[in-house]
């Protein structure tokens, strides 16, 4: 079975959203800044609920925030 990884565009989306800080995003979605850091670095895959909240925070679809890529 091929390996997959979950990637995200949160850092770019924050920058596009008037350079939103990690803390501001964390406050918007109800998590700690540490959680946002971990997600951005790809160290932690958020729950489905949190993934949807992140998409809602940027007013985009969840596919614009996260992508599921096959690893070579």
């Amino acid at each position, binding site marked *: 079975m091929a390996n997959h990884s979950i990637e995200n565009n949160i850092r770019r989306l924050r920058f596009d959203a008037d350079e939103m800080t990690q803390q501001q995003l964390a406050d918007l979605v*109800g*998590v*700690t*800044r*540490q*959680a946002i*850091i*971990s997600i951005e670095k790809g160290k*932690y895959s*958020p729950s489905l609920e949190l993934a949807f909240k992140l998409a809602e925070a940027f007013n985009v679809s969840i596919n614009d925030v996260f992508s599921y890529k096959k690893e070579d």
Partner: protein
Amino acid sequence: MSYQHKKSIVVGIASIITFGLFNIYWLGKYPDLLRSSDTALWGKTIVIMIMVQVISQILVTILFNTLNQIIAGESEPRVRDELDKLISLRVMRNSYIAFIIIFILSMVLMMTGQSINTMFNLLYFGLIGSGIFGEVTEFIYYRRGY
């Protein structure tokens, strides 16, 4: 360094200091404890040690939050999010596994004919050791991001 990093370091160090101070007092009171096979004394030692550690952790956490607020202007995070809960569960699992290994080791030593005080010594030091192991893994998880 984030709040969680600092807290895990402080609580870990406080556990070691508390254990050390407790041993200084308790072994001063019962100098032959580590060579003793008195099960009632060992039971009393372990129960009181656990109570002292719990009280110490509560006081240290309060003190840490107060000092962290004053010195760094950083308060305890308002939310305990899913990442915090997952790390907490992992840390608990790690501590339990560490203690179970120590417990099994003590049983193996008993099986090989070691005296009962060897088992108590292992359990006594293993309790604090597994707790500190948990604190160390908590620091590593937060450092790594998960």
